[in-house]
């Protein structure tokens, strides 16, 4: 307290000013908050809150446009007022936001789904299975008037089915696909008036020539392809269906899917396939051949960095999804072209014999899927808005504004989006690392893949790495599978009993009770799933057989399991 006296007078004076400032700002705040809340909670106006993570350029404006149109249309229709408020949350915290608000029972009315909700969809959202079987009222007057809502979708609304209880939740507004972007100015500058390549070898050749040109011109800052780790995964869409046969051969339970369970493990342990397989080689080399034209150290780069290089005109090509097209378009000041990927063909000198054809996009995801939350105060109104958004007319408008590919049959995309429309013809394939499970196997796989695309090892080195690391990873995977078996079975059984309950006590369930037919078909499915699980358990017997027969790989894996167990015991 040394500073009494003169200073104190000034101090007291300035403190009073501070207090006055505080009081004034406090009053202003009070008034402002009151005003805002008054608008937010106005009587007679239903508020529908929408939350999503699409922060891409132009998307929110497009959504706002549709929202305002719905408000007007609804007022004209019923004379009641409605207000639609969108809230865009960064992708990084989106999942946490939804889960938190879900537990807090304050989830907004419409919520975008698609960030692995972990079975919480039936818990937090209202199923609209009944509604998707009826026509969309906003398609009145078009040829879709009598078509069930689900059939107006390009994908038959398959993207809205939730796997936990096989109900439809929400509806999507767009699709998505990945394509190749190129800088038309740069292409013209280097090669004159040529058509961009449509075939794999021509594409590689072009990249090589571009690199040579850049070197001659002393333009060290130019690379043929702007890429990062993210773009490597995008470029995986460029592969041809070379794994098709491999999967058919090893699909032990004939369910058309190879993987996600111990059938891969058994196939590998039985020696039915190994990682030196020429088909896996073809699959991996498609990308590895290309990565030599990426900037050095691309695996350490950020997705945004690669895209920034492209938009700054420092690269000829860049690969990304339809969701980036608008952002690219709003950032580049050169004419930008969009191409389908140049796929390897059957006459490819290196691995043409394994090429079946291009990969089909029939399973291209339906995106921007919004679902009505259970905590919504106006579920019917919210659903109505969803139907408005996905009527052909509005879907076309919305997707043209936001520059996304539309998902409703007959809705025309924006010219920029035309190259992105789905190409359903072709074959299916899968990621090898995807089929061997999500845990330690995938980690071992991506480690080896990393070395391969950075050309630290050749394919044989890559396969050797996998042959070395896989048995151990598979042993861990095996244990994990057995543990998960228990958890998953529990979830399925719970789902089954829930369905049974709603079937038997439909009255008490209220309007949410499903029809008997639906419950029956679902119970058949769930029973099927259950039997498959038991079959999986039976396959343990096959495992024993493999061990008895002395299969080398099986014994290697068994060795690792033993080591793990002993470590746990100690």
């Amino acid at each position, binding site marked *: 307290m040394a500073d009494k006296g003169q200073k104190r007078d000034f101090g007291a004076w300035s403190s009073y000013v501070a207090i006055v400032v505080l009081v004034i700002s406090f009053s202003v705040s009070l008034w402002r908050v009151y005003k805002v809340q008054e608008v937010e909670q106005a009587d007679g106006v239903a508020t529908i809150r929408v939350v999503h993570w699409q922060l891409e350029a132009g998307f929110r404006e497009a959504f706002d446009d549709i929202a305002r149109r719905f408000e007007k249309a609804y007022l004209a229709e019923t004379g009641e007022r409605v207000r639609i408020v969108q809230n865009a949350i960064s992708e990084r*915290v989106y999942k946490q936001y939804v889960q938190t608000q879900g537990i807090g029972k304050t989830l907004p009315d419409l919520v975008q789904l698609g960030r692995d909700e972990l079975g919480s969809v039936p818990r937090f959202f209202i199923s609209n299975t009944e509604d998707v079987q009826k026509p969309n009222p906003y398609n009145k007057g078009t040829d879709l008037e009598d078509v069930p809502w689900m059939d107006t979708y390009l994908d038959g609304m398959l993207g809205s089915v939730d796997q936990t209880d096989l109900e439809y939740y929400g509806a999507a507004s767009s699709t998505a696909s990945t394509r190749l972007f190129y800088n038309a100015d740069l292409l013209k500058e280097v090669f004159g008036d040529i058509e961009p390549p449509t075939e794999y070898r021509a594409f590689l050749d072009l990249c090589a020539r571009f690199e040579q040109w850049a070197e001659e011109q002393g333009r060290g800052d130019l690379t043929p392809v702007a890429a990062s780790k993210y773009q490597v995964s995008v470029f995986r869409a460029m592969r041809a269906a070379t794994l098709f046969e491999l999967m058919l051969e090893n699909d032990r339970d004939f369910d058309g899917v190879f993987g996600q369970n111990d059938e891969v493990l058994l196939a590998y342990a039985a020696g039915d396939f190994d990682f030196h397989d020429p088909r896996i080689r073809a699959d991996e080399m498609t990308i590895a051949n290309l990565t030599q034209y990426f900037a*050095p150290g*691309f695996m350490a780069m950020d997705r945004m960095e690669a895209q920034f290089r492209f938009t700054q005109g420092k690269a000829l090509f860049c690969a990304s999804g339809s969701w980036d097209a608008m952002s690219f378009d709003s950032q580049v000041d050169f004419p930008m072209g969009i191409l389908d990927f140049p796929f390897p063909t059957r006459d490819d000198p290196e691995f043409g014999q394994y090429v079946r054809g291009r990969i089909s996009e029939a399973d291209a995801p339906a995106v921007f899927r919004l679902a009505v939350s259970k905590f919504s105060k106006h579920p019917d109104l919210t659903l109505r808005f969803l139907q408005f958004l996905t009527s052909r007319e509005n879907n076309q408008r919305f997707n043209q504004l936001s520059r996304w590919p539309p998902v409703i049959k007959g809705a025309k995309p924006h010219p920029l989006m035309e190259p992105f429309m789905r190409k359903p013809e072709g074959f299916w394939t899968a990621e090898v690392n995807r089929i061997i499970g999500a845990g330690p196997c995938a980690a071992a796989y991506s480690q080896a893949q990393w070395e391969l695309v950075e050309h630290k090892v050749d394919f044989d080195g890559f396969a050797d790495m996998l042959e070395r690391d896989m048995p151990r990873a598979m042993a861990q995977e095996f244990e994990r599978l057995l543990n998960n078996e228990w958890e998953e079975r529990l979830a399925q059984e719970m789902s089954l009993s829930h369905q049974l309950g709603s079937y038997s006590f439909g009255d008490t369930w209220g309007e949410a009770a499903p029809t008997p037919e639906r419950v029956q078909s679902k119970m058949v499915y769930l029973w099927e799933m259950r039997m498959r699980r038991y079959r999986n358990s039976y396959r343990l017997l096959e495992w024993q057989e493999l061990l008895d027969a002395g299969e080398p790989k099986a014994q290697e894996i068994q060795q690792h399991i033993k080591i793990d167990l002993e470590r746990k015991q100690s």
Partner: protein
Amino acid sequence: MPKYVSIKRLTSYWRLYLFVAPAAVLVGIFAYFPAASAIYHAFFRWNGSYVKEFVGLYNFHQLLGWSPFLWLVMVAWVVLLMALLVGRPMWLAGWAPWGLLLMVCGLGVALFTAGTESTVLHMNAGEAWQWYGRTMWATVLGVGLHQIVRRNWSQVVQGVLVLYGFLWFYYQSMYATGDQTLWSGFGVIFILVLANLVKMVPSIATAVVIHRLKSERWQYIYRVLFVVPMIVPGMVGLLVWKSFFDPTQGILNRVLLGSGFYDVMVWFDGLVGWGVFHAGSSPSWLGDASLVIPSLIFWGFPWVGTVGVLIYLTGLAGIDESVYEAADIAGATSLQKFTYIEFPLILTQVRINLVLMIIATLQTYGQILILLGDSGGPQGVALVPGLYMFRSAFVELYAGKACAIGLIVFFFILILTEINNRFVRVEK
């Protein structure tokens, strides 16, 4: 002198309780209740709402692993700590160990029931009894230790225990049978604590330099100036620094590339063989798993905490001018002045700051959540325990597990606070 009010006179004085009531009620509801609830729910499989099932120690088993050695140490620690904490008021000191013994007996019964009744514990009755026996032995050990502590061998014993604890931690992080994520999170914390230790130096240096200025006026001006960065909202500082780290447009990369220092780094990288820095691309500081922790350490360069500077200045203010004059006459160098005059005076502050820093670092996760998201950055390298708790609760919906993680972190903090109270504050 406070006025003593006996129970008889309460009739005329009871209104005084109204003075403390609002604070007590608020604290009771919003601080005590959640804390109690956290302890309670750590023994449950709980998702925050309808799933709630008693699972005994399952969460802790999952997190800490199964090694008997480890559990022995754990229990001994808990018992000792409780004894230390409770041992403060003398009338309780005698009772505490026996009360604990009783608690452990109860625990044994609970364990036994859980083991036989529930499959979640992965135990049969025999095993449960085995564990019960071990726990009993550990308790006896703990009570014994408590007796030693009471006879004031505490310093030695505590030293040994801290060492034991570190060994345990090391063992756990190397051969963990528990939750690898949690232990690697503690590993990250350990690195961050070491880094923060070094980061304390610039603040001390700055404070000393300011203090040595002869002019009172300048000292005041500098003090004021050092407050300014402090009143900028922490979030702004955080986000601005985040933008510095932006790979394409961030200032850090622009300086590195523009000054050519990056070439040196690439060259050095080639020499050592990290494979982190490459010519022709700029490092993505927060996007590359091997760069995340270094980025967090580099954070806030040159690490002059404005609060820290002010604290040290307050400590230094006690030095009389004549001491300096005497030192000058004796021909002391400025380093000698620091080691013999200034450092001893701020030692208390340094110690307090040290402990507070460690406690704060243990709890830290908000910053990492904002910078790297709830997954703890690429490959989850920065998934510190606090963030892991947050993630378990609000992303994966394992609220029970989250409470258990919180308790484990709390346990570490309790130990540090105890160390703080015993060794640091006394010498004021």
